[in-house]
């Protein structure tokens, strides 16, 4: 691969701890992701896949304990910076049979270190928009005030008048109706779609190099979802924005992504160019193929009107099995690899240029 990625996540692990069960919830269990400049990476996965937690971890937004316990998140700004620097000293892991069974972590020192690492980056160079926009914005301030605050924090426009002008500019850029009127609205006075636009405006106001969108269309009506998708598309074409798009809605991912990463049970199972992954061919990971085939679309309907559903339950990241995480639901295991699927988890390897799959079907 040619250019250095704008963001590289290496072996990220984020665990939570359940006191009642005395066990770890392995939300993110060794994730590697690259985001190249100017591209849109779509991360798709079901509940428990760890897609949201991954990006929240990257921006130091996980405060629950133990939280992030290993990994590097390298942001190639002017100089490369590890956003999670200092983790090695703050956290110690104990393994047993190649699985982490105990963690010692100095949470307070680590949080302080993270805040230092991310100063100026979070909200500034990397901006994030969230699901449920009304809840994500401050209900006690007008949206105009919040956007202006972003402007003053992260750009050179420090005076209130300048900030207001820029805020109005961004409200206009997200195509909100009557920006001057909406400037003085509070979040509760706006509909879901408008609020989402306002949040995008707030993110853009910092003039970031990268935008992370966490489930931006979930909870919105169909017609409004289309508008938000169009807006994000425009950000790509007009501003050349680098984006990470997290969603469980494959339609949204399909429309916007250049590359896609499929996550399941805390790990990336497959990553590669969007068109290739969405082909519904048998050349990628069985999970991706089965997921696309099971979506309630007319083209998937077999005889008798049934859909080819993936049997079993989505992986519960407290009880992670040995070997491949998808093993219990996989239809394409054969006797040649069955033993290996049960014992050992495959690595993510490149099967065709640009496409990496974590499956024994493709490895010797």
């Amino acid at each position, binding site marked *: 691969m040619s250019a250095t990625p704008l963001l590289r996540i290496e072996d990220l692990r984020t665990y939570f701890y359940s006191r009642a069960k005395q066990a770890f919830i392995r939300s993110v269990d060794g994730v590697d992701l690259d985001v190249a400049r100017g591209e849109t990476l779509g991360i798709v996965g*079901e*509940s428990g896949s760890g897609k949201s937690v991954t990006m929240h971890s990257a921006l130091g937004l996980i405060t629950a304990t133990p939280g992030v316990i290993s990994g590097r998140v390298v942001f190639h700004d002017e100089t490369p910076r590890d956003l999670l620097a200092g983790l090695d000293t703050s956290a110690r892991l104990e393994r047993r049979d190649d699985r982490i069974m105990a963690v010692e972590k100095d949470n307070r020192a680590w949080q302080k270190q993270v805040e230092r690492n991310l100063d100026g980056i979070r909200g500034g160079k990397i901006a994030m928009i969230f699901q449920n926009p009304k809840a994500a914005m401050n209900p006690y301030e007008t949206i105009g005030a919040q956007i202006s605050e972003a402007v003053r924090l992260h750009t050179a426009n420090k005076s209130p008048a300048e900030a207001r002008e820029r805020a109005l500019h961004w409200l206009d850029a997200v195509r909100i*109706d009557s920006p001057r009127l909406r400037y003085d609205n509070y979040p509760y006075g706006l*509909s879901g*779609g*408008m609020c989402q636009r306002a949040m995008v405006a707030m993110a853009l106001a910092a003039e970031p190099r990268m935008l992370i969108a966490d489930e931006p*269309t979930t909870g919105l*009506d*169909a*017609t*409004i*979802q*289309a508008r938000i*998708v*169009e807006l994000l598309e425009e950000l790509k074409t007009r501003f050349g924005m680098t984006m990470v798009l997290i969603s*469980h*809605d*494959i*339609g*949204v991912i*399909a*429309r916007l992504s250049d590359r896609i990463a499929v996550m399941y049970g805390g790990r990336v199972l497959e990553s590669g160019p969007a068109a290739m992954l969405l082909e519904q061919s048998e050349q990628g990971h069985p999970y991706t193929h*089965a*997921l696309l085939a*099971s*979506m*309630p*679309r*007319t083209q998937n*309907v077999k005889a008798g*009107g*049934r*859909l*080819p*559903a*993936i*049997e079993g*339950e*989505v992986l*519960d990241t407290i009880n992670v099995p040995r070997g491949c995480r998808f093993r219990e*639901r996989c239809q394409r295991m054969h006797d040649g690899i069955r033993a290996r699927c049960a014992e050992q988890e495959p690595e993510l390897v490149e099967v065709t240029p640009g496409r990496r799959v974590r499956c024994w079907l493709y490895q010797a």
Partner: protein
Amino acid sequence: MASPILEVKGLSKHFAQRRGLLSMFSGTTAGTIPAVDDVSFTLAENETLGLVGESGCGKTTTGKSILKLMPVTAGEIHYRGQNITSLTPGEFRPLRREIQMIFQDLDAALNPKMRIESILHEAIGLREPELDAEGLRRRAYELLDLVNLKKNKLANFPSELSGGEKRRIGIARVLAVRPKLIVADEPTSALDVSIQAQVINLLRDLQDQFGLSYLFISHDLPLVELVSHRVAVMYLGQIVELGMAQRIANAPRHPYTSALWSSLAEKRSQEAVTGTAPAWGVFDFERPSGGCRFAPRCPVYAARGKPAACTDPQNAPHLREIEPGHAVACHFPL
């Protein structure tokens, strides 16, 4: 043709809009929100009628009205030829078993303090009160088999179940009373994609096995197209189009239906979708609500130079058949 299992005629449900104390003195009339306004349709036996629309369009309210979970403002509901609209709660209760609902909320039917076993036994006991413990257990096992759940789930509490499992228990509970008609309100929306297909297959199998009729409420358009025989499209409390599922999806005649289907993120937006009108489809008492409710957002209305017929309160468009089996409420259907 056999008589329909469900006939809804002119169903209306108006919610009083609560005004503040001051408005009592200022003399403004309390408006009502016509959440469901003059809705009519039929449902045949063994048929699935899809009911689609965006949030706030009244589809859930329609479903709950059919179950008489709220008093109806106007109109009639006929179940198997019997007018159930004016039955008292006591008179209606025996019939309730035949008309059931799968609620959108996965936790709706599940008392968090009761084990699954107790929940199912209670439901079974409603129809078969004479069963003893052994009989109850047997029936519970049968129900779990029907929904593909393992027997060990009986000992669990609802909080210990996954989303898909909760949905199945909800379905099992409804099946325990052997209904003929099920109103399924967003049965798959809170579920993961890989689980949705399982539930859809289950509902289909149950329909074949028991000859059930479904009113399938959803905002997921491709899903509705897949599972329904016919589809009714609702907008702001009214049905704007009603016809065969394939026709509605591929050759819609109402501008709203067309906008809805073409807004799918997978397909490119067509010219038909307007980008100018900011109305968000909520009830707005400032704006005159006479005539067609979709007019402010309608691209055909704009393209035709805002014809007066569309906003004339005396000439509101009604559902009328433009082809056999296909009805549209529009003055200028596509």
